[in-house]
């Protein structure tokens, strides 16, 4: 694969039993590119993103990823957090597992930036959906990923949170490759370099 690329998918197909959720998906993503994936519910956006981060394997086709597992950040439909741990404990656990250098400083900086510092000692089960989504973004950014994969990241965020995320995505697009599945692609007009529209199989 070309050194300038972070992802290359050719003829990707994913089946669950006899049902093809994805079929014939091909694209290249440069190292500082941003792929915006759109499509109606059930079109396979989440499945595609799970393939890209390695949580699922394609049934057919090839997928080349020029990034180590530890340099991928992922925000899925689920927040990927422990509900009975506090925000700080969650980030500390994932920071350890991702070998984040100067972990405490990085965690503090992210919690401040996403407006969660005051809630750092509260359990995630006490968080609103919007706060949980912000914390999920903190977790995904903790290890400064080279490839950031976000599944409907604006969902559950209020307007302030969505505007904050829009600004973050603009600055992240300068340092890492982005793949974002969204129902509001216009929010990503400033960063999108490639677009992929999925239809129902």
């Amino acid at each position, binding site marked *: 694969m070309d050194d300038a690329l972070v992802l290359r998918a050719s003829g990707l197909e994913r089946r669950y039993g006899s049902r093809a959720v994805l079929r014939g998906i091909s694209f290249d993503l440069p190292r500082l590119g941003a792929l915006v994936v759109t499509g109606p519910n059930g079109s396979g956006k989440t499945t595609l993103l799970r393939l890209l*981060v*390695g*949580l*699922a*394997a394609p049934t057919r086709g090839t997928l080349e990823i020029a990034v*180590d*597992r*530890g340099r*991928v950040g*992922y925000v*899925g*439909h*689920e*927040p*990927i*957090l*422990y*509900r*009975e*741990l506090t925000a700080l*404990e969650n980030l500390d*656990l*994932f920071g*350890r*597992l*991702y*070998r984040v250098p100067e972990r405490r400083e990085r965690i503090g900086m992210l919690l401040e930036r996403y407006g969660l510092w005051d809630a750092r000692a509260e*359990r*995630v089960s006490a968080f609103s959906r919007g706060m949980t989504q912000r914390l999920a973004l903190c*977790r995904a950014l903790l290890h400064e990923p080279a490839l950031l994969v976000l599944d409907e990241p604006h969902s559950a965020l209020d307007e302030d949170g969505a505007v904050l995320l829009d600004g973050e995505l603009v600055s992240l697009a300068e340092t890492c490759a982005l793949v974002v599945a969204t129902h509001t692609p216009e929010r990503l007009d400033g960063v999108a370099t490639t677009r992929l529209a999925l239809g129902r199989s």
Partner: protein
Amino acid sequence: MSAYLADVAALARKDLKLELRARDTLPAMLLFVLSTLVVFHFALPADAGEDAAYGLLWVALVFTALLGLARAWVAEREAGALDGLVLAPSDRSAIWLGKTLATLAFLAAAELVALPAFVVFFAPLDASALGGVVLASIGICAVGSLVSAMAAAARGREVLLPLLFLPLAIPLVVGGVGASISPDPGTYLAFLGLYDAVFAILSWAAFEYVVTE
């Protein structure tokens, strides 16, 4: 190696912390094992002998372990936390080992209550019987953590876990009972040690394939 052990310690500590907060596994295990021993105490005929009592101890311990294993991956299933562990650059077998150690801690806590109760209600436990309990508990948690992870990913997990776990636990029960009642407990203890070593290595190596599609 030290990074691997640090990951295992962090994951096991997380499980202990979650249990201290939620208290949804250990109290159920303690209540179950105690009530089972009490029921057996009254149900067993006075002339049944100690051998039958040792068999019942193992029934109580295996089902108590099953109760803990059924809840072992609940925190990971909620909110998709397992995806985060699988995506981390650490060795995926560390997830299994951390879970095995945490489950072993819960089972050991249940046994700390169950074994004195057994001595009070039924019969004494000698060193070989205690050795059998220790070795069988390690095997139960090593195999159980793997099969409960498999079951957690499936739709009929409540049915699947006992179907997968109980056949694998039968040799442990045989070894545990044998170590308690046989005149030659060394053979049974060696068998349990071999079972632990073989199944721990298999579980350690297989875990990665259980948590990835």
